[in-house]
């Protein structure tokens, strides 16, 4: 009984989060005029983050899990200082896969928030938090499949890299043009292809190298210290 209720809640959670992205576009184009797209999308991103953080506040989370989350976040932060190829998303993915959706989301979102203290804080922070958080969330959601199947994990990493880049392109367009226009979006995707490739390559490379050592260490923490 308890198990089914938990499942139902999990599914609800997935739907809630999944619904946010189309909501950004839909609500923006239907309800408001073109000029407000950026405000709407920011509001939605902020709301999504707010819902998550308030939910997180209510949950029972062990101190050890808190600290392990903090450590994975700071390893990601550390990774963001490496030039050109960055292990950030790969680490967020591994965190999600081994420690679950919530920890994955939190690690991604906080990495974006904190690293922008050095790389520049601004309205785009909310967008980055959501994008990177979702990478962690989905890796947690697909954990059962990804944990056993390494090639799939690597493909997933490449997809995440592309998705992250394309979500951030939405932001670029909204920011410049205020309203969303498919033509500008294609142009933005086109100009950001080098970034897209660098994200994909970084994720693939680092998942190949890191998945075993990081995975082993996270498993040990999970088993020995009951995180």
């Amino acid at each position: 009984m308890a198990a089914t209720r938990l499942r139902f809640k999990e599914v609800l959670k997935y739907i809630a989060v999944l619904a946010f992205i189309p909501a950004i576009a839909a609500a923006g184009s239907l309800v408001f005029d073109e000029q407000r797209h950026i405000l709407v999308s920011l509001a939605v991103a902020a709301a999504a983050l707010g819902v998550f953080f308030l939910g997180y506040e209510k949950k029972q989370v062990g101190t050890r899990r808190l600290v392990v989350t903090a450590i994975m976040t700071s390893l990601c932060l550390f990774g963001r200082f490496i030039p050109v190829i960055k292990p950030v998303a790969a680490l967020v993915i591994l965190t999600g896969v081994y420690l679950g959706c919530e920890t994955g989301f939190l690690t991604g979102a906080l990495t974006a928030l904190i690293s922008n203290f050095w790389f520049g804080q601004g309205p785009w922070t909310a967008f980055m938090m959501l994008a990177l958080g979702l990478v962690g969330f989905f890796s947690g959601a697909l954990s059962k499949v990804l944990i056993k199947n390494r090639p799939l994990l690597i493909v997933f990493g490449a997809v995440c890299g592309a998705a992250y880049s394309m979500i951030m392109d939405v932001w670029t367009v909204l920011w410049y043009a205020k309203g969303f226009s498919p033509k500008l979006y294609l142009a933005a995707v086109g100009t950001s292809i080098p970034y897209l490739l660098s994200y994909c390559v970084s994720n693939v490379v680092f998942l190949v190298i890191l998945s075993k050592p990081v995975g082993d260490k996270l498993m040990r923490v999970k088993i020995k210290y009951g995180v």
Partner: protein
Amino acid sequence: MAAIDVRGLTFKYPLCEKAAIEDISFTAAEGETMLVCGEGGSGKSTLLRCLKRELIPNGELSGKVLIAGKDRDTLEPGESACLVGFVGQDCEQQMVTDKVWHELAFGPESIGLDKNTIAVRVAETAAYFGIYDKLSKPTASLSGGEKQLLTLASVMIMQPRVLLLDEPCSQLDPLASRQLAETVARLCREQAVTVMIAEHRFEHILPFADRVMRLEKGRLSFCENRSEALKRAAEDEALLRAMPAPVRIFSGLSGEGECPCDTAGARRFVRETFDNSVRSLEIDEKALSANKALELKNVTFRYEREGKDIIDGLDLEVSEGECLALLGANGSGKSTALGLISGALKAQTGSIRIFGKKLKDYKNNSLYQGTLSMLPQDVTALFTQNSVKEELEASHITEIPFGLEKLLERHPYDLSGGERQLLALAKVLAREPKILLLDEPTKSLDAASTDRLCEIIRSLKQKGMTVLTVSHDTEFCAEVSDRCAVFFSGRLSEPAATIKVLGENRYFTTASSLITRDRYDGALTVEDTVRICNMNRRL
């Protein structure tokens, strides 16, 4: 009413057949200081953790624990956190936040005190521990000793009645451990806090400990007041080895009456009991080899372009087959010098020659293949694998050394300090070096592991290994080194025979040397002292 009342405490880790601690009962009165001693794995740490509800490890627990008359298990969560304070090994790891004021406020915040109370507590605690001027500083900017004080202060801000310290000095240098011990003594005296300290080196703690508890394989062998415990120690070889020099000397000479536990007492005992007709032991002076293993000339190094020179015109010659110890205060450049010699850091000026060949002429890592290798201060830095076996395989070790066979399946982080050191040493020696560099090798080792390390170094020396060690531990230097040199402001003093350096220095010296000074010459170790005193026994 006792501050701590423990009845029949037993604890078993999951998947273990034997209990980690078994049927332990004792009481401690308010304001009492209890020293908990025992070898690694005797259950000291488990016992302390079982007294604090938040830290009880996973496993089977039975028995009753009363703290200030209340059952540990029925306390309110906040009350339980306040009543018992806990300080662990590594102060760096126990800090949570990045600002000093926030670190102090962390505990009160966690138990939901109101903001005004928190402000008052932070203010008074910072003032009492003398860190008020550091409140707005980042915790990273504090020195090692200050960090340990802050850790203690941020536990004491919860106003605990009982303070548990689990090897608080193991990561500290002698100066900082003494400062910590003094602060704890002050807390007992002025605040009537009940203290339990588990420690494997207790020369600073023994003088103010009221009682000594001895654990052996998870069982309580005794819990007595200090003078009684010192008497019992005379028959307990393992415990005796861990005791400070005055106690070991007294017991080694089968002294009668009250056992001294400080230098002054031991000096009085030696003066009143023994003659000084024989002033010194014969010393078999070993001539140094003419071949130089290491030559440093006018080496200068700084970390930053605008920084100050950490190493400033360093000259040093180490002969083949000798063991040279470098002494010096924290930050005097000892470890940096090792970094330069090992080639991990690059000197800005000067020349470093290894076996006559310039350091930079060792191309392609050839320096580390059969010439030189270094054991770092923090040996965990060398561990990347999931078990001892994998670690050894990663270093291509086929013949398992140092009795590591028993530990093959263990995770490197599950080993004790001494075992970790042996594993790291095995990895370092797998490179078959001719020169071995050691950076603080005895830090966080217990007495038995230190003895083991000394033995290994001596046997390596016999095989012709050149050893260069940096250490705060003068007892260790006295045991293994042929010559010593003292670091000061980036330079080294002229290296001289250990017996001369430690025999003449007042502060960089051993307790035995201070005890026998003016009466005998060159008695640096407890064994030397016992030998020379026996030669001077009054008839």
